[in-house]
Every structure is written in C-alpha cells, then in structure tokens.
C-alpha cells in the first residue's frame, strides 16, 4: 500500500475518536448545564461537523482500499443498516402499544447500538474471509 493510502487508513480512527469525544461532550453539556435553546443548537452542530469530517475521511479512504477491504466494509455497513432498521422498526411498533420511558429509550441510546452493529458486522465479515493478522507464511 502506498503512502497516501496508509496515511488515510491511519487517520480515519483519529477522526472517529474526535467525533465520539465531541458527541459525548455535547451530550454531557446539554444534560448537565442548563443552556438556552439557541446556544444548545450551536452545541449540537459541533458533533454534526465532526461526524461529517469523519464520514468524508472514511469515504475517501475507501478509494485506497483493496477489493477485500471494500467488501468487508460493505458487508459491515449492510449488516449495521439492516439491524438498525430492524431495531427502529421494532421500537416504533412497541411504541404504538406501550409508552416507552424516554429515560430508557431515546434516539441518543440508539447511536452506540448502531456503532456496535457495525463492529459486529465487521467482525463477522473478517471471520468469513479469514481477514486476520495471523500469518500464514
């Protein structure tokens, strides 16, 4: 792999980390500090911006991936998308029958679950193609 590819591969987790930190920071700021709605919107924009940068960098890194890596990512995203959809569908149907406690179930609780779905998908896909760091020389 060339230098540009390596550079992008190494930087994507950094942008992901920046987004996660900004998201948690935003969450804690809104929950703990009683900030006015207008200022709250500005706080909400911060993780949106960091997420946009992360997704852009991730998207750019796909161009430098080889075909096995692209397939792994594609399968992981498909897995995450399908299970996220299933979760939202199940929760929305449950909501029709029961009033879900907002403290127990809210959009913010879904974010880490979606991320977990992606990593489960990636794990399954890596196992499927034996894409491991184990050496077979």
């Amino acid at each position, binding site marked *: *792999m*060339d230098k540009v590819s390596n550079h992008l591969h190494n930087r994507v987790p950094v942008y992901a980390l920046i987004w996660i930190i900004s998201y948690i920071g935003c969450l804690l700021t809104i929950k703990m500090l009683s900030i006015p709605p207008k200022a709250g919107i500005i706080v909400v924009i911060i993780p949106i911006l960091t997420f946009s940068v992360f997704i852009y960098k991730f998207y750019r890194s796909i161009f430098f991936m*080889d*075909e*096995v*890596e692209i*397939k792994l990512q594609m399968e992981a995203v498909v897995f995450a998308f399908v299970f996220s959809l299933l979760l939202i569908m199940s929760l929305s149907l449950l909501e029709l029958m029961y009033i879900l406690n907002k403290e127990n179930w809210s959009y913010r609780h879904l974010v880490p679950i979606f991320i977990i779905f992606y990593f489960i998908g990636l794990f399954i896909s890596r196992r*499927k*193609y*034996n*894409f*491991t*760091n*184990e*050496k*077979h*020389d």
Partner: protein
Amino acid sequence: MIKVERAKKNWTQAELAEKVGVSRQSINSIEIGKFIPSTILALKIAKTFETSVESIFQLDSTD
C-alpha cells in the same frame, strides 16, 4: 496455487501483497480460497508471478 507460486519465488505473503498493491490479509484471504479476486486483481497476481491466470486460479468441481 498462490502458495505454491509464492514458495517457488520464496516470497512471504507480505512481500507478495506489496508487489500486487493489496494488504497482506487480502492475500491470505485469496490464498486460502475465502475470497475470489476480480479479473484485474487475478491478472495482477499472475503478472507478478510472471505466469498465466489459469496456472494460479482454476475452477473447482463445485464451480
């Protein structure tokens, strides 16, 4: 067959991966038959070994 060709050249997976321009893990996936490469990648691998695609990739009885 990649393993055989690799052994002939005395290359490691990492060395082959570098020559072909893919990751070592990808070479491993292809070598053990878990991933079927595209025509372009198959041609690149064959070119690296200075041989034909058919000598490296063959159809299984189940294909």
